Structure formats: C-alpha cells, structure tokens
C-alpha cells in the first residue's frame, strides 16, 4: 500500500514583481497513514507553504504531490475542493470560524458542502462537538466562546467528516499554555483513537513533543526528519 503523503522534489516559487521567492526548493517527504508529525523551522522557512500544498489549497510550481495515491499537482480547483471536503481537515492559528454563526453550524459546514440532509448534518456536527468537549455550547456564537473553545469548534469542524488527514498550522499560536495543552490532548486522542494522520506546524518544543515524528524545514528544504523519543502520557480531555 502506498503512503498517505508523497512529495517528490516539490518547488513553490512566488513571483513578486521582478523578484522570485523560492518558498519550497525541491522538498521531498513521505508520511504514512496514522502518523503524528510536527513540522518546525524558523519563520519564512516554508512551513505554511508546504501545509497549503499538503492540504490541496495550493499546488506546487514544480514536482509531484500525491495524496492517498492521487496525483494532486494537476487537479482543477473544484477537484481540489472535493478532495479537501472528503479527506482533509484544517485547523488554523486564527481559528477562522464564520462570525455570527453558531458553533453547531460552524461544525456543520463541511457536511453542508457534502450535500447531506440537514438532520444528518446536525447529528454529526453535534457528535463532533461532543468529542472536543463542547456539548452544551452548540448554539454559542464564536464571540461567546474563549479562544481555546473556538479552536475546539474548529477541530470539531475539521474532524466532522472523519478525514484521513488533519492539518494544523500553529493551532496553539494564539492560545495560552493551558488551552494549548487541551488542544494538543484532543489532537493526540484523535490520532491514537481514530488513527487520523496529523501534521502540525509549531514553534514550541513542548507542543512538538506530542508528535511522534519531527521534521525541521529550512529554506524550503527538509533539514532534519526524525522520530521523537516519546509522547507525554495522555490525560483525559477537560471540558
């Protein structure tokens, strides 16, 4: 069976005026189904650029990217949208919930584009919210939730479709230590219990420590790639 993620000599080149910015420079990477990977590296090293390509939000300028055996480098926008909807969940640093829309409706959103019936959307979104410990908050608006809670809604939205891949670009970047730990525990559990592949970008060592594998990026290339010693013992998710 092929790996979940296969990057071969991936380049991403931005043109800004006459200038050429090489954000990714021949990066190659393989990630298996079920892994929990932390991507680290200094600012501007190309982490977000890579995450966008892995998440099918963007396509490489050169090189090949295969997700679940599907060549994503030459798909059309709507086909990419379909893949994102079916296989990928996103968690962003800035939560990116839709304002003035309840937690439940935010969590429903991917199912909405799957064309499920309203009833199915509701049940599955409510279940996803329960999994991140937000039962009872279904009808809260984002402004009525703390940062940590908003990020948990975002995680519920990401996992509601049971994706094979969850991408989190600095998910704890806007959170305090305690909320960060809660988020990480949820992600850890999703990885352990459901086998969801998680790729996480972070600048913090103790966050990266939750992952089993650590990849360091520098100047758009893989600088180092190794398994970490171990993971903290999981503790129950707080409400």
């Amino acid at each position: 069976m092929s790996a979940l993620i296969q990057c071969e000599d991936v380049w991403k080149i931005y043109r800004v005026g006459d200038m050429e910015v090489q954000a990714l420079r021949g990066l190659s990477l393989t990630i298996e189904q079920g892994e929990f990977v932390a991507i680290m590296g200094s600012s501007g090293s190309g982490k977000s650029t890579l995450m966008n390509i892995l998440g099918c939000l963007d396509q490489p300028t050169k090189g090949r990217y295969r997700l679940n055996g599907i060549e994503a480098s030459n798909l059309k926008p709507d086909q990419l949208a379909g893949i994102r909807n079916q296989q990928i969940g996103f968690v962003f640093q800035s939560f990116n919930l839709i304002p003035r829309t309840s937690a439940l409706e935010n969590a429903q959103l991917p199912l909405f584009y799957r064309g499920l019936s309203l009833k199915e959307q509701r049940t599955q979104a409510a279940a996803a919210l329960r999994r991140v410990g937000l039962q009872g908050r279904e009808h809260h608006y984002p402004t009525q939730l703390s940062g940590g809670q908003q990020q948990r809604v975002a995680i519920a939205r990401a996992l509601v479709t049971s994706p094979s891949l969850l991408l989190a670009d600095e998910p704890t970047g806007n959170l305090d230590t305690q909320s960060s730990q809660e988020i990480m525990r949820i992600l850890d559990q999703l990885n352990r219990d459901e086998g969801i592949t998680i790729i996480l970008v972070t600048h913090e060592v103790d966050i990266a420590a939750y992952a089993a594998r650590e990849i360091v990026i520098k100047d758009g290339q893989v600088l180092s790639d190794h398994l970490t010693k171990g993971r903290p013992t999981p503790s129950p998710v707080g409400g």
Partner: protein
Amino acid sequence: MSAFVWLTILTALRILARNRMRAGLTMLGIVIGVAAVIAMVSIGEGAKQAVQAQIATMGTNVIIIFPGVTSASGVRGSQGSAVTLTVSDAVDLKKRVPLLSDTGWAKRDVMQIVYGNRNWNGTVNGVSPSYLTIRDWSFTSGGSFTQTDVESAARVALIGQTIVGNLFEPGEEPVGAVIRLKNVPFRVIGVLAPKGQSAQGTDQDDVIFIPFSTAERKVFGTSFIGSVGAMFGSTDQVEDLPMAAEQIREVLRARHRLQAEQEDDFTIRTQVDIGKVQEGTSETLTMMLFAIASVSLLVGGIGIMNILLVSVTERTREIGVRMAVGAKRRHIVMQFLIEAMTLSLVGGVLGIILGVTGAKLTTLIAGWPTIISGNVILLAFFFSLVVGLFFGLYPANKASRLNPIEALRYE
C-alpha cells in the same frame, strides 16, 4: 442540493435581517421601481378598461360616416353642417357593400321637451329603426318603433334614462305617456336602457329617438329633405371593418361624383379607429411607466451589485473558510446569487405591497378606476428576480474566483 439551497436561503435571510438598514437602502430602488410599475399599470389598465367599456357602448363593429371633413381625433364640427349625405346614400351602400350587414341613419336637433308642467332641453334624434340595432340600444320597458310607424310617420318616441329622470316622477311609468316636442305630441313607446358616458364624455342617455320620417316631416325644419346627420353601418366581423370602410368610400365618392383630385366630402370612422385614438393616450402612459420602471430597476440592480461587492470583500475570509472545507465554485456562486435574489425579491414583494396599496388609495381618494391584474404582480415578481440574478452574477462570480489561501489570509 435542496438542503444546500434551503440553508443558503436561510443564511441569506439572516444576513439581510442582520443588516436591516443597509438592506433596506439597497432594496429601495427595487421597491420604488416595482411599486411604480404596479401602481401605474393598475391605473392605466383601469383607465383603458373604462374607455373600452365606453367604446363598446357605441355598438358592435360600427362604422360611422359623417358629412364634411373631420379631424383625426374624431372631433367634428356641428353635425349636419354640410348636406352631403342622404338617405339614398345609406340605402345604396347596403346594396353595394356586401360586407355591411346593415346601415342606418340619423339626424338630430336640440329642442325643448315638455311633459305636463315639466320641461327639458334634450337632443332629439330622427333615426331609422336599423340605427337602434346597429348601436345596440336595448329597452328597460316598451320597445322600438315598427316599419308601419316609419311609413306613417307616427308620432312615437323612445326616451333615454336622463330624460326619464328629468321629466317623470320616480316610479312613474313613461311608456304610454304623451310628451311634446316643438308642441307636437308624441307617445312614449319605449324606455332605453342606460349607456352612460360616451368615449368623448357626453351623456348618451340624454336622448330621444323618433322615426326619421316623423322628424323630417313634423319636427325638424323642412329644408334639405333626405339629408342625414350621420350614417351608420355594421359588419359581422370586426376584421371586416377596414375593408368595409374602404368600399364605402369608393361607393360614396362615385355617388358624389368626386374627381380624383377632390377630397372626400365625408368622413368615415370605424369603432376600431376610435378605440385606437383612446388607446394612444394610455400607450403614452405605458411608455412612461416603462421608462420609470426600467430606470428604477436598473438603479436598484446596481445598488444590489454594489452591496454584494462590499459583502464579498467584507466576507473574504469566510469565503476562504468555505473553500477550505470543500465549497466548490458553484457553491460560492449560488450563495451570492441567492443572497442577491433574496434582496431583490424581498424588495420586489415590498414594492408589490406598496404599489397595490398606492393603486387602492388612488381609487379611494381620487376615484380613478384601477385594475390590479395578477399578471402585473407576477411580472413584477419575475422582474425583481431577474434583476437580482443579473446584478448578482458579477459579484458572485468574483467571490467564486478568489484564491482560497489569499482569502484565508485576508485581513
């Protein structure tokens, strides 16, 4: 897909409710446009139907021939000022123009009508019996005169409702009563059913009919025996009117020995011509409405487009999120199109309510007849939908072409 559409409509309504002020101002153009169309079409239709009802009182498929030259609007000089038409013209026309099912003639004069100690100045018409059938006169009591009445120049009269109202006591039966015209006694043998105002605004019920022969010999002056004030013809089919009019013209020109370069010494008007003159006015009104409506709907549409472009910019991040979780281009297009159509439809419905209210108030206050047709309402509804669709297309398309990464990063 239906769950998607339904939820998108709900979302659109929620956004609309959230920005009531903004939505209201945006919709104003549509509201005014639709209201103007509804109100004015209703008033126009009401006026048109009133005119048509008046024209219908002329009779069915009627052709009128006046002596002398008449202006195009149908307004003419005093009837009978020229003595170019005669009874024999009318009789001959019936023989030589087969399209005419009948011809009739009339001559009139205004005189004092006396009954008991009451009197009234009214129009007395000497008419052929066929005149009454051509003009579709019917009776509320009594009946028309007979051929015998005509041959014997009997002193019998048919009287209109206005005359009845002015000469008789309420409830008094006029049939059988004797009235005096120029001091000549006439027995009333029929009371005419009311016709109301003519298309020219005269009271058609202020009328007395007596046999043409009686009028010539006993009431009107004896000069120009055989001349008529006007001739009337009718055809079976309304389509035959123009052809019949042309044939009448040829026959009359020949009978009057007019040379090719001479003008007609008579004027022919068909019921259709008269209707057209009246409809011309309401057509002008309709064109004006059309202009007002187009401009308002255009302005309304541009307003919707503008507000949608603002909305697309404001909600760039939201669009990015939607794209990230799997919204395809058509989903984003649909979302904004539905928002645009919701705006324009709500505007349209408000406009319909306003327009219908306006029309009803016009009837109530100014007393103008108005007709609110379901078609106009349907059309207004449809138009506001189309405006929303058309002007929503550009913003919706713009939103759907956003790059998801840039949209997600948008501040």
